[in-house]
């Protein structure tokens, strides 16, 4: 990516774990304050890197390489209702299973497994504590003893085993994904009334195959039907807080000009596909001394709006929910808003646009998608022309 007039680009650095940008004017690195407070004993936020499942430390930036380019991950708040991600003891009903040591090869968070034998007996192990009704998503890792691809059944008389959510096996199998070798991740979900709120897990019936297998890495999230990532609980319900980050003092650092500048951002996916409530401040450019002044991006499942507030005339510009690329340009009292490759609003405000800081935050409830990836961001201390901005947007 080469953004000509933009002088500060997204460059997360691996060597020190910081979320940093390169400022080409001052030839200096600027750092963001990345926030993800631990709510329990650990962060509960895990990432896959080099086939290893790694749990991030409190406030450790959540980013990764994707197709050779860095992306910042903005995750939602979500809780794992299974007490032990890597189980060694019963939590709820269990029968005819055993707990074994097993190094899954995924890192320290997966060193055990629940072992299921043949189909001579009904075998199951459950956990979690769901509300009486609603939606839930259960994910876990499985490896068949014979190395075969597991066959999941939505009944009790076929396949290798069944998934139970809230006491019933009538669940959707969202995905069966090969992780490495013969190890798979299963994602399943259910919506409705849960006949037994404490019973979510895996069951093998006598009418199913004779193949044994091991499972571990359980994550059960209430209120959503899609995978929210692995949340490595260890003896208690664990909630992962939402990701948030902020750059401050951007004018002082020369990243933005005084009362003028440009900002461009590209998201890899839709902001929120299943969300009735609008999330405010998904992206916000604001004045650090006056929280009532800002340009922000907010959205829900049906619309995205760009707002300019506090400078005289409040602007609320709605753009299609499919929009992935945005740019904001301000110069004195004038502000221009761009979506995809079109200027969608231009206004003259009563006051100068005195933006000094930038931030992004994830939703406080589990939603779909479970994270929004920011694949490109750039600041300019000058206000670009409409033609320049469109050229830059087309490069993303």
């Amino acid at each position: 990516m080469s953004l000509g007039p933009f002088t500060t680009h997204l460059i997360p650095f691996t060597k020190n774990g910081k979320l940093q940008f390169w400022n080409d004017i001052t030839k200096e690195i600027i750092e963001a304050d990345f926030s993800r407070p631990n709510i329990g004993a650990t962060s509960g936020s895990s990432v896959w890197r080099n086939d290893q499942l790694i749990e991030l430390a409190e406030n450790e930036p959540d980013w990764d390489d994707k197709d050779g380019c860095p992306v910042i991950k903005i995750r939602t708040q979500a809780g794992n209702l299974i007490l032990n991600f890597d189980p060694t003891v019963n939590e709820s009903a269990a029968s005819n299973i055993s707990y074994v040591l097993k190094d899954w090869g995924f890192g320290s968070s997966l060193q055990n497994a629940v072992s299921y034998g043949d189909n001579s007996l009904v075998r199951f192990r459950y956990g979690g504590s769901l509300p009486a009704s609603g939606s839930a998503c259960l994910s876990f890792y499985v490896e068949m003893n014979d190395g075969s691809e597991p066959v999941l059944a939505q009944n009790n008389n076929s396949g290798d085993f069944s998934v139970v959510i809230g006491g019933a096996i009538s669940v959707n199998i969202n995905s069966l994904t090969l992780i490495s070798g013969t190890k798979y991740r299963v994602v399943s979900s259910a919506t409705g009334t849960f006949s037994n709120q404490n019973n979510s897990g895996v069951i093998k019936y006598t009418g199913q195959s004779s193949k044994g297998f091991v499972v571990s890495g359980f994550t059960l999230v209430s209120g959503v039907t899609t995978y929210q990532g692995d949340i490595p609980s260890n003896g208690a319900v664990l909630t992962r807080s939402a990701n948030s980050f902020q750059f401050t003092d951007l004018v002082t650092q020369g990243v933005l000009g005084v009362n003028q500048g440009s900002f461009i951002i590209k998201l890899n996916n839709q902001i929120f596909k299943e969300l009735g409530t609008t999330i405010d401040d998904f992206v916000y450019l604001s004045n650090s001394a006056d929280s009532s002044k800002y340009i922000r991006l907010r959205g829900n499942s049906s619309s995205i709006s760009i707002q300019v507030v506090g400078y005289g005339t409040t602007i609320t510009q709605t753009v299609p929910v499919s929009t992935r690329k945005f740019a904001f340009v301000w110069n004195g009292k004038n502000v221009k808003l761009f979506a995809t490759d079109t200027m969608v609003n231009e206004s003259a405000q009563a006051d100068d646009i005195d933006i000094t800081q930038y931030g992004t935050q994830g939703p406080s409830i589990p939603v779909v998608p479970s994270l929004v990836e920011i694949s490109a961001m750039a600041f300019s201390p000058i206000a670009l022309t409409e033609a320049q901005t469109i050229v830059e947007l087309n490069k993303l």
Partner: protein
Amino acid sequence: MIYTKVTLKGSKAAVLADIRSIQKDGEAAYPNYPEGYEVTGSSAFDRYVVTPPRQEVLNPATYNGAGEEVTPAVLGDFISKLVLPAGYDTSHFATKV
């Protein structure tokens, strides 16, 4: 400390009342909790994180070999965990642990 972390424990109504009493800039941050999105302050670390109140399990249920419940779980108070900005005054929370 970069955050103020608090655990609330009590009846559901009492815990919800404490959550709804959280103040940001002199106004209620979550006046209609559980409705509303996470409120943040002027810095990235000014967080107002709330976890949904969940009932504590005092004694887990017991099951027979067929997986049938023999004795039900004994449930206790509702618990919610909060992450608030550093220096936030938590003295007014009635259910603070």
